Structures are given as structure tokens and as C-alpha cells.
């Protein structure tokens, strides 16, 4: 089968119906930016966009992905050599600690900002509440999403 990831077509061989998108991305395609934290939809570390919707890749079987579906991973945030405003804001505010949750945080933030360009603090907290950060960077994450809203074109 084929997957459209970050506007590139990837051929996937050996697909069992049950294989989860997360492990195809990470172990087969080398797109390791999408991270694993729980494998059960609780933590958000594996968040990608499927047709623009934030989705937990750890519980998404690849067999459920239709050929015309667009998948976007953290590797697809930067475009034409320049970082995405969400990445810029996270750097500016020096948000990460260990960093393992950060791809998922940024994917959730990007989806939010694409749907709602000027979110309130409460909107941000609601949209991001299923992304765990064990290191406890929440204060900065909220500030960075607000900052990214200002940087978005």
C-alpha cells in the first residue's frame, strides 16, 4: 500500500491489518519524530494530523487509512527550510525539558491554531489537555502557543 505523508508518497510493504501507524512511521520509514509514550491513546506523544485532524498514531491501524488521506507528522512542520511558527515559538520560550512529548505537543498546537487562529488561554488548555508532559512544561507550552498564534502568517 501507499501512504501520503508530508506530501510524499511512501510504499509500505508487509502490512498486517493490525499494524499501527506509529510503528510504521518510526521503525519502517525512519520518521522518528513521532514518539511513543503509552500506545493506548492516553498521552498524546504520538499525535499526527490525518486530514488536518490531530490523531493518535499509536492506536490507528494503517489498514484503516484510505489511499487519499493526507498524513502530516512533525517532520512536515518546517517548510521550505524555515521552521513552523509553532516550532519558532517553542524555541523562543525554551519550552522543552526532556523533549519526548514535544512533537505531540506541537502537532496538537498546530491543529488548534489552524482551526482557531486566536485561541484564548482556556481554548489552549482545552485543546492540549490530552497531551501529557511528564517534565511539567505546561506553563511554557501555554505561553508558547499564545506566542505562536502571533507568529502565524
Amino acid at each position, binding site marked *: 500500500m501507499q501512504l501520503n505523508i508530508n506530501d510524499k508518497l511512501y510504499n509500505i510493504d508487509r502490512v498486517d491489518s493490525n499494524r499501527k501507524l506509529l510503528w510504521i512511521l518510526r521503525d519502517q520509514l525512519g520518521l522518528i519524530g513521532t*514518539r511513543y509514550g503509552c500506545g493506548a491513546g492516553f498521552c498524546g506523544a504520538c499525535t499526527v494530523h490525518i486530514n488536518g485532524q490531530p490523531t493518535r498514531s499509536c492506536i490507528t491501524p494503517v489498514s484503516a487509512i484510505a489511499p487519499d488521506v493526507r498524513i502530516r507528522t512533525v517532520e512536515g512542520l518546517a517548510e521550505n527550510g524555515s521552521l513552523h511558527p509553532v516550532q519558532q515559538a517553542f524555541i523562543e520560550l525554551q519550552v522543552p525539558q526532556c523533549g519526548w512529548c514535544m512533537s505531540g505537543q506541537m502537532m496538537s498546537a498546530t491543529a488548534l491554531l489552524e482551526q482557531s487562529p486566536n485561541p484564548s488561554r482556556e481554548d489552549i488548555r482545552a485543546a492540549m489537555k490530552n497531551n501529557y508532559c511528564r517534565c511539567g512544561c505546561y506553563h511554557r507550552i501555554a505561553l508558547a502557543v499564545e506566542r505562536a498564534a502571533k507568529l502565524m502568517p
Partner: protein
Amino acid sequence: MTKTWRLTRRKFLIGLGTLTGGVAVGLPLGLPYLRRQAFRFLSQGGPPSGNIDGEPQLWFEFTDQNLLNINVTKVEMGQGAHTALGQLAAEELEVPWENVRVFQAGTLLGPIDSFGTGGSSSVSGLFTPLRQLAANYRFMLTQAAEEHLNNTVTLNKGVFVDPDGNEITLSAASRLEREWVAPETDAPLKSINDFKLIGKSVPRVDIVSKLTAQPMYSYDMTSANNTTYYGVVARPPVVGAQMQDVDANKAKSLERIISIVLQDNFVGVVAEDRETAIDAIRAININWKLPRLIENTDIDLLLDPDSNNAVELKRVGDSSSALEGSNTISAEYSTPLAATAPLEPQSSLAELGDDGIMYVRTPTQFPNQTTSAVAEAIGFDEDKVDVTPTYLGGGFGRRQRAESAVEAAILAIESGLPVHIGWTRSDEFLFDRFRPPTKHKLRGILNTQGTIEALEHRQSSGDVLFSELPEIAGSIAGSDFGATRGIDVTYNIPNLKLYAHRAKLPIATSAWRGLGLLANTFANESFVDELAFHANQDPLQFRLDHLNGETGSLVRNALLHVAKMSKWEELQQSTKEGSGMGIACCVDYGTIVAQVVQVEINKDTISVPRVWSVMDSGLVVNPNGAKNQVEGNIIWGLGSALKEEITFKKGIPSAKNFGDYQLLRIDESPEIFVDLLPSDRPPQGVGEPAIGPIPAALANAIFAATGKRIRKLPLTI
């Protein structure tokens, strides 16, 4: 003595030199005396930080582009150690920050460290040794440049210049063919006033990579030259279960299975992909002999603060008779088992090199110990095993051991292939080394002036660091200095006694962020609040009235600062129904933290809109990084205060995944205000201290809001 530099490495003894040294010398003085001394040493001195290699060429390398590569021994788990250590070295070598790169040393490559990474000691412990090494190297490089240019030179932005304008870069100077000799006496260090990098919030070296999908964690590792295979190991249904018989026939017929490894009490599978490996392990039938199945009540009964086996840690005056009075106030506090739950489950890549060396990439805080464990498991000499830590997706104490490193090495040897093993989240929970539960009995009495006349704290805890040390250390030292961290009291109290009881629990407990700091501070700072209430005093004023002496005045400053920041008096007066303010503080080695928590109670929901935190940790190498640590600790403290708890039933911990073990979420986190106090003391730890006061400050706020005193974590009303 003059020493010629060679590019070889020295071996250092592995271990906590501080404890064993003290104990060996002191034995004839008798155990009780010794134990108090050990406690005093460990609570007043610093945490162990280890010796480091003294050869600059192992640490510093200049590239052709005159960039400075620094190989550091401490691991980066989000605490900012790589950046801060880079700042220390670059400061003395006069290299601009943009030209600095930081790399992780392995056990066979680059410098080594006798300890590891922990105890918030990476930067404070290396503050002087690493700068000294860099200063000595600069001295040597200057000599080399002067010889080469045959003139005096000055160093500016990585380039030596002589009075005639001739130049040589640090990089070129470092490559001059000559006999490199260390200075006979240490080169002078820069004075604080001349610091250009230390004390500045330079951007962290790891942040851009972490936000741009770089492979930098153990879970991301693949073999550089060969196909990587995936391993899974059979895990017992209950910790301690032994394998009886194994039937792997069904698994053998599965496709894409490369090898099945059966050893004594070990079953592993190597496959082309992870999910196949998991399927294969499931297809292997194993009969397990179960151990006695632990219930939570078994654990609870072993925690006994009144035990005769409790060790006396500190005695001032005569609290026993002072506490005889009928006005004695007493209270019992408890904290539960908790999981470490770093967000990246542990994983390792092991590959046997053509040179016969087993190369392991793994998230370990203690590379030396991991090397020994791997070498022993596969029958290699330690100098044939390289353990190079990756960036860690969280540490928090869990990475003292790296079980997956041993597992991956066994499978790599048996299959002859590069093998990656990634634990699942359930593996992490079921085989965690938990924060031990604690119980605390406190008694106190006030005198007629309304100050504390006597105080006694009897604590009982499961093992924290004893579980990581040989059994003998435990029987000599008596109390686990990890479990007692934070039990000492800075308040001026004429009669004081501290006791610690070691509960030998039938489950694995170990280090968790801050070790005993959170539990002991919860008990001490809640109880002081209770005494303030009995004395009919404002909790802030009551604390201030008990603070003098050197440390006392630092704590006083921190409390006054946080009170001002939070408008303590004003908000206390004006708080509306169901809301309240609480204050607490702690001293963790040389770091002082004071915090105020605002709480709002709505029926049985506790929410925390705001937290103010003040920290005095001496000179701060990277203020923005230190603030990030304080913010993280506040979230940790609140998570523990409100949610985190593990219980045991039929030998199994209560959480298999985050569904059963909720972490604090962004919509539950407070607005956070952090101030770092200026100080000319040398750097102290910043990675853990701010976790200490939070639970007590919150419990104190709940008391202020509702009149209910909650003495058990997690706090519920």
C-alpha cells in the same frame, strides 16, 4: 608534579566515595554516633558528585572550523546539564556560545565520571573542577600559541592575537606538534565579575534538535551500518516469578521471526519488527512459579515510625522530657507509593562491533553501573563494553538502572545482530522501581511565648538508595540517606529529635525526583503550620520567628520574598469563600525554596490557580533553564499532592498505563511565578529542590480555605 598529557584514560573507582570513606574511618566510634555523623555530613555537605577525568583533551576538542566540542560525562534528561556544563567550559576557554557543541561521553570514549548523574549535583559538583580543567587547558594553549608566534598573545573570541596582529585560532593551536605539559600549579580562574556566559540564559544546546525530530533518544536509535532488528523479552506476570517450563514451538513457525533465545529464567525473541516480536512472545507458553503475592496491607504494616529499630539521626537538647507535657500536639502524615513514569519508556540498542566491543546506546543515569551489568550478563570484560547514554526522555531517578541494556545485549550476542529493545508503557509501570511509601509521626510542644519548645519527627520509609547499594551499606549506615533527605529542620528549636526507620518492603522501591524531600517536607511543613495554628500565629510570621543563623537568614529572605511576590497578606485577607493561601519552604542541601500556593475548593474538587516560587540556589549558571526546572517541579509536586498513587493487589501494581495513573494535565496546572534570588554563593542544585514544599503548601492552603487538615497524599476532601 609535571605531567605529560597522553591520550589515554585513567580509571576511577566506582561508587559513592563519601559514604564508604566516612564509615570505614568512623567505625570504632560506634554505630549510633557514626550514623548521626553520616546524616550530618550528607545533609549539610553536598550530594555525591563524583570524580572526573583530569585530561583536557578528553573533554575538549576544537574542530577545523574552530568550534569547540565538549564531551561531557553527565547525561541530559531535560535538566539542562549539557548546556550549563558547556557554559562553564566555554567561559574559561573564551569561546563564544554559538561556537560550542556538547556531546555525551561513553564509557570507552571520552572522559569518565566515578559517579553518574543525579542528586541535582551535575553543575554544582563540576562548577570548579570543570572550569579548572578548561582554565588549565587555556593556559597550555596560550603557551603553545606564544611559542608558535614567538610573541605574547591575547585570546579573543576563540583566536589568539599577538601585538603585531598575527593570529592563530584555538583549533590551530590545539594541533601544534609539541610536548603538551600541564601547568605545575592550577591556572587562575576568571573572577565572577568577568563572566560572560555563566549567569546568562544562553539558549539550551538540545532544544532545537528536540523540536525538529532529530534521532537523539534511545527509542530512536538504529544501527548505523546494518539493519536493525527488534527484540522483546518475556516478562513475568508478577515481579519475582520464576520460569518453570517453556514451550516455544508455536512461535518458531511464525513469519519474520529471526531468533528465539531461551536461557535460564530468560526468554527473548528477535524479529524484523516490534509488533511481530510481541506476537511471538505471546505465542510462547511459559509456566511461572509465583512468589507470595503482595497486598497493599502487607506494605502498610511494615511502615512503623515507632519501631525500636528506628535510627536516631539528630538530637538537640532533650526533647523526650520536653515533650512529656499534656499540651503536646501530635499528628501523623503519610505518602503513598508513586511511579516514576518518564514519558519515554526505556529502550536500548546493542550491537557487537567488528572490533569485538559491545556497543550499547541506552538512557542511563549511571553508565558505569550499566557497563558492569551488561558485561556480567554477556560474559565480557568491562573494557569490551561501551555504554554511551543517549538523551533521556525523562529521568527522575528511574534511569539508575537500564534493564533493557542488558536484555538487548543478550539478544544481540545470541542473534549476532543489532537489536533494539523498547519497553512498553505497561512494562514501565509493572516493573517500575517506585517511590517508597512513608509514614511520619510528629510531636511538638509550644512554650509560653508561643514558639516551639520541642519537636520530634519519626519517619518510616521504604528504601530509596539502599536498594541500589550493596546490602552491607544499609546495615552499617542504618538509615537510608535518600529516604531521609529533607527531614532536617532549619527552624531554631531548642529540643529536637529526628528518627528514621527502614521498612524493608517486599517490592522494588528506589529513587524518585528529590528522593525523600517531598515526603519529609510534606510532614515537616504541614506540622509547622499546625503548630502556628495552635500558637494562634500567622503561618509566615510563625516561621520567621524561628529562623536565625546563616541558613535561617537565607530561608527568611526567601519567605519574605515569596510573601511579597504573592501579596501574601493582602490575598490572605481578601480570599473569598472556598479559597485559601498556603506557604511552605525547604532547604535541600544548599538550595532554599519558599512557595505560596493558592487553592480553590469547589465541592470535592481542589484546583490551584496560582503558585509563587522563590529559589536561592547560589550562583545560577543558566537562569532561564533553572526557572524551567522550578516550573517542572511545581507540576510534579502538584501531581503528587493531587493524583499520583500506586497500590498493590495480588502482587500487581495498580497501574498498567496512564489510564490508571493520571499525571497532572495542562488544564489543571496553575499560573506559575518564579523568582531566583541573587546570590554570591557557589552554584547549588536546581533540578529537584522546588518539588519539596508544594504538597505542604497546598495542604496548608486547603486548611486555610476549609479548616480541614489533610495529612495523607494524595490530598482529597
